[in-house]
């Protein structure tokens, strides 16, 4: 592992790897922050639905020889607003509608790919991720967008908390919760498109769900859950990328595996009596 680390960070020819890792770290950070809200709001399925829509747009963009991000972003953002509407509207069965949209996009994507380039390694990369998928202009656009997502999250952190914890109360005190739900959906859509090719369309939603779930095993305040899941996400991504490099596994798959390991670790730790001792220390520390 250490050798691989040296190779990636010291060899000049590996600049593309370093850029890709930078994008990956930023995307994991965004996904983890948004994930806390999405999981608590029971919106996890939206992330999953969006990644499938993303796969469809990626296939179409490749067929048209267009830059993937420019086609994917508007379509996925649109899909995000639609999914949000569906899950807020109790008349339509939300989960069924999301499943239909997911599978339809997948079907369109696969059909377009087989008609144009044929099923090849590209398809495998789309689905399960590759660190080599991004070119230089993609990387700079991704970095810029990730910074915007992070900035928006920090700026609207308090509002996102209020809307996540109690939407009725937030609305009653004049917080336009609809707008913040849309903001959340918008930022999620962008994060998914950015991370999709590196993590794979089938696996990107785990980047949103796992870190939040892991840190909720141990942390008890919204702030600590948010910070903890950001750290977990970045660390897991980093280890996952190295693993993927050393053992030639698709990046998405190895990152998800590391996330599963982290989740199990946190879960086991939450069962230990250590937890209540930790609580007491925390209470004592804050009371001093």
């Amino acid at each position, binding site marked *: 592992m250490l050798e691989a680390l040296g190779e990636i960070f010291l060899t000049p020819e590996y600049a593309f790897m370093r850029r890709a890792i930078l994008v990956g770290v930023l995307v994991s950070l965004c996904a983890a922050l948004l994930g806390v809200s999405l999981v608590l709001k029971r919106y996890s399925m939206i992330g999953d639905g969006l990644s499938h829509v993303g796969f469809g747009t990626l296939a179409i963009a490749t067929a048209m020889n267009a830059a993937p991000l420019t086609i994917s972003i508007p379509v996925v953002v649109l899909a995000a607003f639609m999914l949000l509407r569906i899950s807020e509207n109790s008349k339509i069965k939300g989960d069924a509608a999301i499943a239909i949209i997911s599978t339809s996009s997948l079907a369109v994507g696969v059909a377009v790919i087989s008609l144009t380039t044929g099923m090849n390694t590209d398809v495998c990369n789309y689905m399960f991720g590759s660190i080599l998928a991004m070119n230089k202009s993609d990387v700079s656009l991704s970095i810029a967008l990730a910074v915007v997502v992070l900035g928006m999250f920090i700026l609207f952190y*308090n509002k996102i908390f209020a809307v996540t914890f109690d939407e009725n109360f937030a609305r009653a*005190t004049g*917080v336009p919760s609809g707008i913040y739900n849309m903001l959340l959906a918008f930022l999620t859509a962008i994060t998914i498109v950015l991370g999709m090719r590196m993590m794979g369309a089938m696996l990107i939603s785990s980047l949103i769900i796992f870190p939040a779930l892991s840190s909720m095993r141990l942390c008890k305040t*919204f702030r600590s859950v948010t910070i903890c899941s950001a750290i977990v996400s970045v660390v897991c991504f980093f280890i996952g990328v190295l693993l993927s490099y050393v053992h030639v596994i698709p990046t998405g798959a190895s990152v998800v595996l590391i996330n599963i390991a982290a989740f199990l670790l946190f879960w086991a730790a939450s069962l230990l009596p250590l937890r209540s001792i930790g609580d007491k220390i925390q209470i004592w520390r804050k009371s001093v």
Partner: protein
Amino acid sequence: MIKREYKGQESEVLLACKDLSFAYDGGTAVSGLNFEVHKGDYLCVVGENGSGKSTLIKGLLNLKSPASGSIIRGGGLGLNEIGYLPQQTAAQKDFPASVYEVVLSGRLGSRGILPFYSLKDRAIAQENMDLLDITRLRHRCYRELSGGQQQRVLLARAMCATKKLLLLDEPVSGLDPLVTAELYRLIERINREAGVTVIMVSHDINSAVKYASHILHLKHVQLFFGAKEDYINSSAGIQFLGGEQYA
């Protein structure tokens, strides 16, 4: 028995509803509402399930627009100056948040577009935590508190949003009798000492009659509105109170 020095004394009208009605999917939820809430009142909205109580609450909070009639606000009551204590949702039961985070979020409505809380906001949150005696729970996780403690936290949050009017939606449902009595006394104290007007929706007619100054009885229409003393002797009151006692 609590005697209120309301009668005969002109006080400011905070809310006035005129011929108000609400509809859902073409049907009428509740209609013919004509009542006023004065500053310092403690109004209890009673009625059976599905009598239009929750619809009225949504209307007062501006979350649902009336089908007809109007709600007039007075006494300098702003749009976002109603402290609301909603019924708890399932998602909140396993929500990781500290008591302080929840209470502080009550200040958000007054922040407008500004992203972060000011020192004043934090001071107000602390003040209300002291008032409701939950300061020692400050760093505890909300989901690990008892039902009564959770209601105190949500009450403190509601108090952060207002100095004028509290709207409580079934605040004692699911609480044991001891905690219920404690919460009622707390609300009474807030009403009398802090001078906050209270509108409470409740199933518990006996406590409503005990603590409130005014009663609004709904059954798709307004069966009764007026002072508590008059309600006890009204036909609607005798029937509802009697029904509760001998059922």
